[in-house]
């Protein structure tokens, strides 16, 4: 029995004629935080979208907890505990905070469990409880990110895909989000973290991959990457 949660084998993904991923190999093990780094347009979001099933790969294989999910539609992979928090939060503006959280547990039948999970989310992000009746579109950027993560946690993720959770946030909020990620990981969630903020990401990550124009060009454990001269020059400089 292996402790591999997610494995990508030679994954290729295209948008029409544009080839975005050119043979990605990647492994995420149970209990890890794995960082996926890379410049704008490298294919980080596409990698996450391919894993969750929002876009289909044209070649390769994706295994999640021992099952082949390469062809599974997005709404089915969710049921198996693979939860994707997309770039730009994508919360439902025009609906209340509470309704957003409800929708996070769409697959759940039991209202009692739903309530328990919502209490847990409110424990992690107390501000959401204060704003529960408010239109989610009126939340600040940081609060929206908390809502996006809270919504994902309504689902009890076994694997959480986070796409740039710190994007556009003030430094103290980045710290706050990173703290929550560490806390989630400590309480058992495995995490694949896409970040522009390589410094913050590598502080948390057990392992990291560097993506460049659709290919993995480097991989190593978090500490080594943090000290790697090439990484320091490309992503951590000043």
């Amino acid at each position, binding site marked *: 029995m292996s402790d591999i949660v997610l494995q990508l084998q030679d994954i290729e993904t295209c948008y029409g004629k544009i080839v975005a991923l050119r043979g990605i190999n990647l492994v995420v093990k149970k209990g890890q935080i794995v960082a996926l780094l890379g410049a704008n347009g490298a294919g980080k979001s596409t990698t996450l979208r391919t894993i969750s099933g929002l876009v289909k790969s044209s070649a390769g294989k994706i295994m999640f907890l021992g099952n082949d999910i390469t062809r599974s539609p997005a*709404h089915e992979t969710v*049921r198996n505990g693979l939860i994707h928090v997309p770039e730009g939060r994508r919360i*439902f503006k*025009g609906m209340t905070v509470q309704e957003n959280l409800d929708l996070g547990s*769409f697959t759940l039948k039991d209202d009692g469990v739903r309530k328990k999970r919502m209490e847990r989310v409110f424990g992690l992000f107390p501000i959401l409880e204060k704003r529960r009746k408010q239109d989610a579109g009126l939340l600040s950027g940081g609060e929206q990110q908390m809502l996006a993560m809270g919504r994902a946690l309504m689902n009890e993720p076994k694997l959480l895909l986070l796409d740039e959770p710190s994007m556009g946030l003030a430094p103290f909020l980045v710290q706050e989000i990173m703290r929550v990620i560490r806390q989630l990981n400590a309480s058992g969630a495995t995490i694949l973290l896409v970040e522009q903020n390589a410094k913050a990401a590598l502080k948390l990550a057990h392992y990291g991959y560097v993506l460049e124009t659709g290919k993995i060009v480097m991989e190593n454990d978090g500490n080594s990457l943090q000290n790697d001269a090439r990484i320091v020059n490309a992503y951590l400089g000043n």
Partner: protein
Amino acid sequence: MSNLDIILQQLANGLILGSFYSLVALGYTMVYGIIKLLNFAHGDIYMVGAFIGFSILSVVSGILGDGWTGIVATMALSMIAVGFIGVIIQRIAYRPMLQAPRLSILITALAVSLILYNLVMSITDGEFKAFTVGLGYEGISMGEVYITFTQMVLVSATAVLMTILHLFINKTMYGKAMRAISIDQDACRLMGIDVNRVIAVTFFVGSALAAAAGVMAGVYYGSIHFFMGFVIGLKAFTAAVMGGIGSIPGAMLGGLILGLLESFGTQIPFIGSEWKDVFAFGILILLLVFKPTGLLGRTEIERM
């Protein structure tokens, strides 16, 4: 008639008319909200609803009679049947078109409209059908105003249906998913929502409401015909746009306002009832000039 009598009478007429408009407008607005399609076949669904109701009533009235018991049963069965017809049309005609350019699916809707219209025309030989019900003409009179119980029941039934819809949309998971899909489909898929399934449910609900209106129109006017969906389709569309297309409370409000405007419009000096359509569409144009998103619409403006 005194002024007060006239106002009361037109209020009653306007509420009935507005009920039909609202029920049909809801289907327009729900489908637009979820897949951004102006479903021009929706008026024909209302017409099909009336004919399905007619057929069901001819069987049901033998068992339950043609009083309210029979009519309520007919209405419920028609709503279910037409709901499924809506789902089937959606599955065959619209779903394959969802990724295609907008214009393609719009043309598909026009084709569906023509098919339904011609189908019913040939089946019925283009004849009027008498929608015979045994409800009588009892009612209450206030001064010179006379309002039948039938009118009151139809308006109340509309209110009940709208309340149920309101609860469905706001309190159930599927209702919330429906609203969420109109905001962000991909985000919904990431919540585990089967978007195609929710779209199908939306068509079911919208078609069922149109069927309810079709049966009510049969009961109220006493006869039905294959072209009865055309004008009401336009009017319901107008109502949906007035209320803000995509907005469910907007469709309810838009329908009622349009019904009331039309019935009161007939009372304006020098504008006879033959001008009532001009009046209704004129108001729409004025409203769109000053508030392009409709009364309760969202602020985004999209070109079609």
